């Protein structure tokens, strides 16, 4: 097994703020509502979560609505449009870690209220971690917004070659099930194009 060009970012709950609007939306509250979560939910989540991201920087060739990353060719008009003007991209995967799955499984038995709240908190948290990690990954390069399998016409089956390229089982503990859904459940894969003129370093 070799994953020599893969870079890793980890973070703790103190490293970034969870986006309040995102959280409100997941909790089915109004955007600007004042949300006070039960202390037990945030404490349990913070002690379970292990944020981790793996990524590579790779070239991408765009040709007739096919995005060719070398290790995978993706036919997708939406991704093609997203990557227009890019000749390189970051290919990334992010996760909260498996202990969050175990926490949610336990809460699903003990308290539906805490389960609902913690599930929403976890979803908002992984999105915020993506934003945080992308800021670090992007550094001084100009990038287009990140794009994930499942958006538009980008089929989720492409999570397989993407995760395989990142050795995601070994680096992040992410596996796919037969329906191409990820475990840990709060995991995200994404591609972030690097704009040509600013991408040259």
């Amino acid at each position, binding site marked *: *097994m*070799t*994953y*020599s*060009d*893969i870079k890793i970012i980890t973070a703790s709950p103190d490293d970034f703020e969870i986006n309040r609007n995102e959280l409100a939306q997941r*909790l*089915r*509250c*109004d955007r600007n*509502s004042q*949300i006070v*979560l*039960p202390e037990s939910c945030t404490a349990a989540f913070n002690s379970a979560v292990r944020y981790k991201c793996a990524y590579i920087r790779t070239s991408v060739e765009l040709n007739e609505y096919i995005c060719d990353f*070398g*290790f995978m060719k993706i036919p997708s008009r939406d991704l093609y449009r997203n990557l227009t003007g890019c000749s390189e991209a970051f290919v990334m995967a992010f996760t909260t870690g*498996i*202990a969050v*799955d*175990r926490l949610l*499984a*336990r809460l*699903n*038995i*003990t*308290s*539906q*209220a805490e*389960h*609902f*709240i913690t*599930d*929403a908190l976890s979803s908002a948290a992984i999105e915020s971690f993506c934003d945080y990690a992308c800021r670090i990954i992007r550094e001084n390069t100009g990038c287009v917004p990140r794009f994930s399998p499942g958006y538009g016409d980008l089929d989720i089956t492409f999570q397989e070659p993407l995760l395989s*390229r990142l050795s995601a*089982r*070994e680096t992040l*503990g992410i*596996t*796919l*099930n*037969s*329906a191409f859904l990820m*475990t840990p459940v709060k995991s995200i894969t994404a591609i972030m194009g690097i704009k040509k003129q600013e991408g040259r370093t």
Partner: protein
Amino acid sequence: MKKITELIKEKRLYFDGGTGTVLQSMGLPPGRSPELWNLEQPGKIISLHNAYFDAGCNIIKTNTFGVNRCKFANYRELIAAGIGCAKKAAQGREEAYVAYDVGPTGRLLEPLGDLSFDEAVSIFADNIKAAAGCGADLVLIETMNDSLETKAAVLAAKENCDLPVFVTNVYDASGKLMTGADPLAMIAMLEGLRVDALGMNCSLGPDKMLEIIGQFREYSSTPVIVNPNAGLPEVRDGRTVFNIDADEFSDYMVSLAESGACILGGCCGTTPEFIAKTIAKTRNLPYAYPEEKDITVVSSYTHGVVIGKDPVLIGERINPTGKSKLKAALRSGDLNYILNEAIRQSETGAHVLDVNVGLPEIDETAMMLRCVSAIQSVSDLPLQIDSTKAETLEASLRMYNGKAFVNSVNGTEDSMNAVLPVVQKYGGVLIALTIDESGIPDNAADRVRVAQRIIERASEYGIKKKDIVVDPLALTISSNPESAAITLEAVRRLGELGIKTSLGISNISFGLPKRELITATFYANALQCGLNCAIMNPFSEVMMNTYYTYRALHGLDKGCTDYIAYASAEGAEPEKKPAADNVSLHSSIVKGLKDQAVSCAASLLNDTQPLDVINLHIVPALNEIGEAFEKKKAYLPQLLMSAEAASAAFEEVKKRIPADKTDKSKAIVLATVKGDIHDIGKNIVKVLMESYGFTVYDLGRDVPPERVLACALENNCKLVGLSALMTTTVPAMAETIELLKKHDPDFTAMVGGAVLNQEYADMIGADYYGADAMDSVRFAQRYYGAAE
């Protein structure tokens, strides 16, 4: 050539190093599977192996790491070619062994993933069958980061070949596998499965492995393998390199050898140079085969529990004897009740959970398998598999994630012949009851003799004395006043012989009033006699008092910290806490404070009729938060917290209403329809329905139409709530409604879920579309004409 398991007793052995690293330097393109070269470029694979043998290593790994039937249709060919290349390189060399290399499947096992344990075993078994007969000298199961998948691979190897089995796992910087196991948990499980060598590989450099090796030295009686990476990857001058070079690597390997590693090698980033330098520096270091560790350990998928001086509490609550609610749960297959008991026992301080699901009218093996898997998804405590049936023990031990307590064997020939082979194969710590064909001896000396006979017979199966914990049987003093003294004497004598002991403590007081008084005092006496484990009720305050005070008094609780934490905690039973004077049930519910709502309800019930507590306190509070939700002055999280507080209060009230007076007339069947696994919405409706006093028959998710109909008919419930989150499963909802209406047009179907709207609901023949959970409750109230 000597068998490798013999040679390792005499000297330190050496694995090869990285495969991908070297093959990439030979031109393997990034992203290309190295295993394809077994057929395409066999010469290069042979030269890779030769380079490592020339560097001095004894064992080479075949280039078959990623090969299995899920990834390669021609897996048999690739495996045979891979072993063939390795054999060619080994030919004519002394002490040169070929390890058939097995990597993970790439999928995660149930309950967290979707690969069943049996399927995983079958995938690995196909690999082993393909390799058997190709001439490998051993099987190496490596880079495993999940304990259960490791177990599946080991069983497949053991069941399909006679080769020695070596196992290495991937630990992260915190010293744990990706799914949580620490070295003690892995050593316990793997030694139970009788692997020939175990250890760690990949992910970490030798410096980090040095921080973990101490645990292997402390707990492992099996030779330890250490195959680290060449540190961590770094980009230098545009090139990716590992940050530890061969000189530094080999220096660390000296320390690892001195710390007890018996087999040294390398993983990612290491090359023949790394191995040659490691061999040169460690070849002449003194070598010692690991000594047998006299440690009794049961384990889960995260940690081990050592049975020794510090008393171990085995929670007894998942055992139907005398527990009507558990019996009902087992009969109806309601795992939620059982899982709640598991979680509550974990939270109150049990170290191990006994699981007994034996009821004459259910399929005990099937239920035990369901329970073990489900409990292991919500609790990380080791389990005690408790059954009188050998087939139930065998089926559960096979898929149990860890090394379980096995309850039990006794001194009869029938029992020993049935149970000992099972433990021999799957591992486990066996509870041995001192009973034989003549019954239970009436004196301590004879009980000890029965125990010794079981230990002797077990040794014939290779089961060690340390893996047997003897239960000299506590029998009630109400029928024999001497029985406590006999049992205590047996505990003492067994301890003197170095035999660990366990007792089902509460039996001692059977048939007597205020049983806990007798039980707790007996427990204290037994601890004083050296008892190691007690199967007991962790919800019993007096028992836990005894446990904590004993540990504090006997120097087992440094600084009395555990005792102080226990004694300072608020009462474990919320209903025993007095409600604060200025807090009402109404406000507790509105604020969503569950424990407080229970206390308030308990106080109110002292001078208020149960129905008044419901109608004058609980329902108005719920209505208040419900209306606030409808007016968008409160949000879903608050509504849910309030509903749970109301449900908890409602449960408290129900305790005061005789069972036959419980109103089951207001009921609803709830299900997430077939094909849909999203059940959050349905669960929210359930919580709210229950808080309003409806009886909810919750069928869970992915429920076929026939089951919905069967449940509705069985419970004579005409109101059915169906949920679907995905557009693809709305047809299943339509199908369910059609089936219900066809059977009886009086069935009323309420539907809800993210993809539904009124138009959709009308189209599929639903009677009502619930826009949200509160809306659903309002409809149910109108349906039963009870919106009072």
